[in-house]
């Protein structure tokens, strides 16, 4: 099926727009911290932006360590055949 339709997402400038929007929302979420009282069960939840940096670091750690794990457990696709 030939499809010559133009897609908004095909243009890299539009993809950039989405990423910039993500940056902006993230920044806003950090700024909001200053204006409300955070409820939590643990003291460390009160640290500034705890969830934000925990999420960011956890994510990078997971992806990079999984990438490292590949060195040990990656085999050919037909390994078990």
């Amino acid at each position, binding site marked *: *099926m030939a*499809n010559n*339709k133009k*897609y908004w*997402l*095909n243009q890299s400038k539009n993809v950039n727009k989405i*990423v910039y929007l*993500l*940056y902006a*929302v*993230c920044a806003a*979420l*950090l700024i*909001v*911290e200053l204006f*409300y*009282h*955070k*409820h*939590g*069960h*643990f003291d*460390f*939840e009160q640290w500034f*932006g*705890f*969830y*934000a*940096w*925990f*999420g*960011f*670091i*956890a*994510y*990078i750690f*997971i*992806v*990079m*360590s*999984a*990438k490292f*794990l*590949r060195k*040990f*457990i*990656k*085999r*050919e*696709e*037909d*390994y*078990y*055949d």
Partner: protein
Amino acid sequence: MTNILLHPALILIFGGLFQTILPTQLRRIFLLALPILAGISLLSISFGNHGQLQLFEYQLTLLRLDQLSFIFALIFLIALFIVALYAWQEKDKLQLSSMFIYAGAAIGAVLAGDLLTLFIFWEVTAVSSAILIWANKTKGAMRAGQRYFIIHVTSGLFLLAGSILHYHDTGSLAFNHIGIETLAGCLILIAFAIKCAFPLLHNWLQDSYPEASVVGTVALSVYTTKLAIYALARGYPGTEMLIWIGALMTAFPIFFAVIENDLRRVLSYSLNNQLGFMVVGIGIGTEMALNGTAAHAFAHILYKALLFMSMGAVLYRVGTTKASELGGLYKSMPWTAAFCIIGAMSISAFPLLSGFVSKAMILTAAAEEHLWFIWLVLLFASAGVLDHSGIKVPFFSFFAHDSGKRCEEAPLNMLLAMGIAAALCIVIGVYPSFLYSLLPNTVNFIPYTASHVITQLQLLLFSALAFAVLYRNNWYPAEIRATNLDFDWFYRKPGAYLLRSFGIFIAFGEKRILSALKKILFVTGTKLHRHHGPEGILSRTWPTGSMVMWVATLLGAYLIFYYIF
């Protein structure tokens, strides 16, 4: 309930068998009506024990309905309706039959009031679900199905052995709190642990689910493991060990999910990780935690089925779910992509979607018990969920690098099934009180507080930010065709090798034993021929009189024995 034939499980099982004789159109409507009929039956049953009967010395309870069994039976039926709609075009009657028997047996097991009834339904789910894997008819599916079948029948054997011991210990087969203090309790726990895919017992899941048919995988994702969650919540609430096992379960599959290429296998790892949250809830065992487990199971069944349906639609149209072969499919399948994103956001627990209102209860329960380490592991795993299910599955199939593959949008019935599941994810997220009213304990939890919404968005969006940074710098691990070793390597390589050597050894012994047996048979045969053959002394015809005499002798002997003993 007066008539046990109105048992929802039996309606589904017999209906599933009966549909094979119906013409196509009628069959489709009949199959959609079955879960509704079973649902009416379920709603008409009052809470309490029904179908009690005495089998030898055992007191059985075929149907026990309370809050906990009700919520699981209900979501099993809702899911069955969705799967039946998804399977509208399926022509393979064997597959449809086994799907309904499987769902019926899972509901029967959830409603079982005693361990024997549980065991019977437990084994029926094992057999019928294995057929769903074999239905894909590939070589991989055949083998994975065999492994799946052996492992699940083994789980049933543990359950049976444990139940017999439990009966000897307690004098009752009733399925209530069991605990791990006795050997019986430990055996039954192993049975549940296998079906729940505990760490190191988990590989059957990632091995078989991606090999099953398009429809089969969706059905499989609903029942087997959630039946095990129900059984654990019934028999082992508050067992501390489960907190640690559950936490481990949430954490380790995410690493495998990140580097897995087959997106249905990614979803299987993700399923394993979601089960971990529920197991933690069972281990904590407080009212809040058990509510969280039941709520999370309910929400999870819907979004996980939704994700598997979207990948099933991709498999149906494109023929593969390998991330390395996909990309840019949103151009061809915009609706499927949209539904997949709703499922992905639900499992990631974005506000206004179902995962947000259910998972948080388990985290709050952990926090209330001051389990800070467990709580951190769950938070860590939540960031992991966002990666493999929230981003990876929709991103690499529908967006990312355009694979150039163009296909038709998924068939209407599949879109409708996905649409219903997606709508339910949103309804639960927006009106959580509906779900909360079904939970086993009174709910004392408000999901939508400023704190919860903002902190959750911080966690998720900063994780997404991390993805953007990694991906745009080409640090994100590329999708490549590969097999990643997991614990199943031990039984698929050295284990299989040992078994094969053992087989050769046996074959050698077999030859010698067989030749010896042949010799014995030959000797006996000749002797038999001598006495019973045409010329044999024992094959002569005797007069009636001698027979009467022998009967009288036997009766006499019987009388003597009777009086002596």
